């Protein structure tokens, strides 16, 4: 049995730096075959966990993006109606009988797999990412619970389809609404925080190897300080990487050197009008000066 530190190391090799909490939770979820529920602010790398895990396990990632009004035909399966119609027409011209036609058009050839069904029918257990589960309706949450405990899906025309392999399930939530206790209880839970300075430096180094150490320190320091300001949308890790890429692309060596360029690059970090107004040039300079 591998330990969670090994998992942490192999995740790091794919470019994902996981905290101890997250690595342990992930390891336990994988070993026990339980779904993992990840909560945390937007932009802390919840979705990225699934991608990294799929890379580590050398398997595919199947993603289901949740939204209000998500229903069975989008999440589980749908019949290919156009093909069915064509087939019926062809059959009636060929003089085929009704029962034979029905058996054919409700066979697997005419079934369109959606993420949940696809995930349980893979040769090799995939990583199933159910993104932003809190956006889906409560009914869907309840249905999901059933799928996650039985790993089988019933299609009236076709019968019950059992899982060939059990996918590794990762659910993410932004905390916009409370999830049901039942769902929480089924899952291993981890809360993903904004990374600390060291971790963020490591992430920057692994994702943008071109950025020099001195500038890297400044960038991370600047973003970490910026997160302490009162902002509407706190910049996440992806924003930090964009910021670093922007600075590197402009050939900047020192954050404090050119206030106008820094202000222009803030476009990658601050995404609302109010936040832009909250950090004018002087404040940006002061934060950059402190971060250096």
């Amino acid at each position, binding site marked *: *049995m591998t*330990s*969670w530190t090994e998992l942490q190391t192999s995740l790091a090799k794919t470019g994902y730096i996981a905290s*101890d*909490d997250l690595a*342990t*939770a992930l*390891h*336990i*979820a994988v*070993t*026990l075959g*339980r779904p993992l*529920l990840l*909560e945390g602010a937007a932009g802390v790398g919840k979705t990225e966990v699934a991608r990294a895990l799929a890379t580590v396990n050398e398997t595919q990632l199947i993603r289901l993006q949740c939204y*209000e*009004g*998500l*229903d069975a*035909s989008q999440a589980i399966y749908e*019949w290919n*109606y156009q093909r*069915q*119609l064509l087939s*019926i*027409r062809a*059959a*009636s011209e060929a003089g085929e009988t*009704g029962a034979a*036609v*029905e058996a054919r*058009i409700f066979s697997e050839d005419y079934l369109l797999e959606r993420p949940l069904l696809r995930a349980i029918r893979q040769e090799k257990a995939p990583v199933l990412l159910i993104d932003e589960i809190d956006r889906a*309706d*409560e*009914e869907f949450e309840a249905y999901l619970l059933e799928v996650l405990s039985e790993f089988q899906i019933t299609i009236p025309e076709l019968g019950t389809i059992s899982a060939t392999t059990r996918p590794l399930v990762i659910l993410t939530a932004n*905390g*916009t*609404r*409370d999830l049901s*206790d039942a769902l*929480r*209880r089924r*899952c*291993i*839970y*981890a*809360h993903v925080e904004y990374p600390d300075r060291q971790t963020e430096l490591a992430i920057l180094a692994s994702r943008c190897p071109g950025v020099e150490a001195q500038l890297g320190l400044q960038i991370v320091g600047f973003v970490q300080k910026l997160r302490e300001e009162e902002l509407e949308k706190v910049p996440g890790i992806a924003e930090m990487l964009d910021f670093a890429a922007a600075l590197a692309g402009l050939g900047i060596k020192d954050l404090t050197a050119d206030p106008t360029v820094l202000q222009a690059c803030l476009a990658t970090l601050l995404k609302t009008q109010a936040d832009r107004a909250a950090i004018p040039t002087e404040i940006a300079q002061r934060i950059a000066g402190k971060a250096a």
Partner: protein
Amino acid sequence: MSKVTRFAAADPGPAARVSGFMAHLRDHGFRLGVAETETALRALSCVNPIVPSDARLALKSVCAGSVEEIAQFDLLFDAFWMAEGRVRQKVMPTKQAKAPEKSKTSRMDESQSIKGQGTIHTPEDGNDGTETYAEATGKLVASKASNLMKKDLRELVSAEDIRGAELVAIRLGNALRHRRSRRRKAARKGTQLDLRRTMRHSLSTGGEPLRLAKRRRPERPLKIVALCDVSGSMMNYARPFLAFLAGLMRADDASDAYLFHTRLVRITNALRDDDPLRALNRITLLADGFGGGSKIGATLQQFTNGYARNFVDGRSVVIILSDGYDSDTSEVMGAALTNLKRRNCKIVWLNPLKGWQGYEPVAKGMATAFPHLDVFAAATTLNDLADLEHILARL
């Protein structure tokens, strides 16, 4: 006292210790069942349980289910496993705890904690004093302003008027009823084709889709959860408000009603009594402490952490009938409403005082609550209640 563990003398084995830990967590408000104990043991077998930090991380990922619980977990873990748990210390740090003094021996510690309990009671008593004071001012203001009112709800005491209030309540209930779902369902008439059923029908006509099946967005009822303040300052409004609640309850079976003053009482079943007046009497019996002080923040907190978990979801409207005079600090109410709001419900606050001329929600409790509310409206006269129909329909 041994410094190492408090179960060293007769150790019943790791399984019992872990279930002891689960019981310890449960005592502190974690919602864990037997299945979690099993998962916890299996999770421990995935890591190296000899290393405390590993065991901590493993148990945390299984037992904690929310940000709040994660924040609590480390302290509880230390208290149980790291022998910092002189049991007393853990029990003490509730909201009322004084700054803990470091004690030399466990006996000292115990005696202090007993003393501590004594002092907890005294401020409670003091609180009661301030409550009465708060009520007194509330009543005083109320009686002053009542002269300005044309028709106050407190004049509605006769059975017919209660029935009138009920009619309004039923209308309000109906106004709240309809909220379109975004999911589509099969229906006789609708805007969208239901291809799946159309296909099925077409089989009988040789593939010719003669009968078109339709789908539409069904209307989902909103569930009403009403909380009525019956503290001293609200006494004048209590009866009509209860009639109003009774109307709401009878209008549909899914709704829910509660009373609160210093405690929270669920009155849903009592209000479903066929005879409205008998229902009111049953409630009066249920609500021991009727007309006493008010702890809005604490009772709302209790509601959010208790009943709300089962009865409030994204399709609920929580109606709070209260004047907002709270003897708790306003932070408690703010936190309670923030948590309640996270259940994705709508919150409507009906305040009898708002009907007065020049009323501003300046009472500290009301001011804290204000940003969390979807609707803040007056409920002093029947006309006010009837006007609510339009406001609530927009929710």
